[in-house]
């Protein structure tokens, strides 16, 4: 996890992202999944690649919470990951990178 983002990448306008779901943005050679929890007004960003079978799929996964903790489920085999820490929530040994997100002037920025 990167606490001190060096760059804020201007990804796309807020309206490009679904409410209570995810979408994928491209940053150089990277694919980043962005998720928006509407009721909580919270945004999260993670790698789009699922570490389980290396599928570019997390942005197409369903989001939700486990005991109040935000998560995403990979559409392939339903491995779930914390959107805050990137850890696998089934206790398995892989995780994803998470990135900070900020909203400014109607745009989504991702800290890389």
């Amino acid at each position, binding site marked *: 996890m990167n606490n001190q983002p060096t760059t804020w990448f201007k990804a796309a306008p807020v309206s*490009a992202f679904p409410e*209570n779901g995810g979408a994928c*943005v*491209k940053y150089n050679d990277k694919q980043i999944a962005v998720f928006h929890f509407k009721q909580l007004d919270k945004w999260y960003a993670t790698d789009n690649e699922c570490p389980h079978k290396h599928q570019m*799929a997390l942005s197409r996964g*369903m989001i939700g*919470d486990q005991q109040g903790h935000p998560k995403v489920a990979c559409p392939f085999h339903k491995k779930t990951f914390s959107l805050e820490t990137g850890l696998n929530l089934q206790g398995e040994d892989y995780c994803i990178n998470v990135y900070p997100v900020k909203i400014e002037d109607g745009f989504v920025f991702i800290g890389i």
Partner: protein
Amino acid sequence: MTQPLKVVVVGNGMVGYKFCEKLLTKVGGGLFSITVIGEEPRPAYDRVHLSAYFSGTSVEELTMAPASWYAEHGIQLLTGECVVKIDPAAHYVQTHTGLQIPYDKLVLATGSGAFVPSVPGVEKEGVFVYRTIEDLDAIIGYSKGATRAAVIGGGLLGLEAAKATLDLGLETHVVEFAPRLMPRQLDAAGAGMLKRKMEALGIQIHLNKNTSHFDGGAAVARLSFADGTSLEVDMVVISAGIRPRDELAKQAGLAVGPRGGIMVNDELQTSDTDIYAIGECALHKGMIYGLVAPGYEMAEVVAKNLTILSSNGETTIVPSLGERGLFKAFDMSTKLKLIGVDVASFGEPFCEQTPHDTIIVEDKLKGIYKRLNVTTDGKYLLGGILVGEAENYNMLLQTVKNRLVLPPNPEDLVLPARKGDGASAGAGIADLPDEASICSCENITKGAICQAIEEHNLPDVAAIKKCTKAGTGCGGCVPMLSDLLTETLKKQGKVVKKVLCEHFDYSRQEMYHLIQTSGTRTYDEVVAKFGKGCGCEVCKPAVASMLASIYNDVIAKQAVIQDTNDRFMANIQRGGTYSVVPRVPGGEITPEQLIALGTVAKKYDLYCKITGGQRVDLFGARVEQLPFIWEELLEVGFESGHAYGKSLRTVKSCVGSTWCRFGVQDAVGFAIRVENRYKGIRSPHKLKSAVSGCTRECAEAQSKDFGIIATEKGWNLYVCGNGGIKPQHALLLASDLDDETCLKYIDRFLMFYIKTAEPLQRTATWFNKLEGGMEYLRDVIINDSLGIAAELEQELQYLVDTYHDEWRVAVETPEIRARFSHFVNVEEPDPTLEFVEMRGQKRPADW
């Protein structure tokens, strides 16, 4: 504080790892400084489930604990480092790179290697052993150019290896020296039954064969046997037993057995008291234990004794820590974890020395052989053998271990449950004493598990595994964990209600009713009104399905609550592309439509396959291509086939009376009518159907959720059949129906199922849980015993009337169409997609 005791472990296999874990839990860090040296390139992994690697389980999933675990617990882990020398006098070990590591106490956990007989030609290419991930990688690699494999050795491991080569697509032979398979676990009759079972799987068995040489050039091409016969093969896996890795111990001058193995006493000390040996390398009272559970027990004994030692200087006993552990002879019961063949032997399978009587049940037709050895007074079980059906293995093993008194008719333990008998015979899990060891790998008792369930309110088996570690070894006890959970919850007076998930305290049936009566139409409303939190991947698609079954709105309007297939209205496939299946009602298709399919497939470079449901599946479409593909398909009259949805797939049909000389009704015509009536309806799970034109049943209607078979007078309607994992024949609901009545009954049946099933429950499973069975179902559907028939028909008619082709809606609605793109900030396809060529078409590259 004294210096921490320097403990060095040689070998980072299953037992070496378990030893570290146990040492840590005894006292935590501080008392010891631990170094583990392993020769394999990665940290210890689950060798017992090695074969799962073939079916896609990753190395990470097999790993016992990641390298970070060792670091976090202050253990120095050296992988890829082989210990080549012990200096017992100077108390250090030396590795192949020259590293010298001093120790106070040394633990040898070097395991064993495959025993490779010195047969001429054994060094040829294409000859493998089956022990490590590297071995498996080599086998997988070589198998691509091979067609016939022989496994040498018909024991537990050999048969597992044989199943693996069979699954790799090779013609598979097993060559066994003894006159029967698994000679150490099975008697002649049991082994005979197992042989038939293996042959039925497609594995050829050769007994009484002594391999005298491997022939061929650089690579193996043939096995020659001592009896003059031979077998052509291009690949060999040797699984002829294990050889303890005692070479290091020998070099250090420690006592080893005449046939290998490092000699240890009851405290598992070798002939040098500062050096211990545990796991498969240790020879205890003349026994090498080739199983993981005794190895774990050895790890426990040494961990305990070292803890006592280090907290206490030398030898006196610390009361709080209890007495020093001693390793006792261990139970060698085993269950083969092959898929498709149940085999187990437990306790004393042969009873060669103990006076006993045997109970034998043999059913050649079903391929079942069961043998119980009972004390001569008929009171206690001594052991036994199970082939073909081993469901009772765990209970029988516990009956032996805990010396439970047998019921008056012990044969009931192995006979199929008698009809109408009510309670199952023999001891149930409730009869086991609290001290009964449930998980023998981790040595966890029934009492400990029940206590953990109560104290920590453990909700499911996964939580029990995490909290107690039970079930994390060989996994054999998992079914018992589940029984214990139900038992314990029941005892606490907790009703085990099937709620949707943590976000909703209602069953699906209750939710259905709540949504319908409250008129809530979106997931957000439903969760706000009846649930809590933000939902999850379980309740979102479940609610989406119910909303669709009730209102039949366009599902794409709430795309983010749909499973990925429903979100993009196509089936996601390996690699992340999608497949497209247009509806072909009844399997009837015009030449124009066929041409259009070909044209589209060529234009978008899609892989084509005819499905089992009489349709064409086009694979490899990128997400942004989907609307364009559909635009072209819609033009020639295709509609969504809902292959992606939990909804009606195909109504398969035979040609029936229009072409077939046996046909008595127009099967295709009726199939088309049925398919068009129920298409697009969302249900708890997918629905399959078929119509056959006569009793010859060429459309296989009896394997469907609802199937229709023509009679001279009309149609017979069958329901709740299933193919898939657990095939089940559909049962006759009503016979000789006219078209209208047949549809009326299907209407009622489907709606009743849709309203009352659990999420993702197929009709067959739903039916199996339905109290009252077919008689009850018939009463509801035909005699309207609940007085809901009219309502069911009405609700179903609403769904028929509101049918819309969701792909047409998607293509024609710009907001929906715009969502079909991989990135939202650039218009580019996913650059990571990769395909390879196969038989003239494409397929995704391997994962």
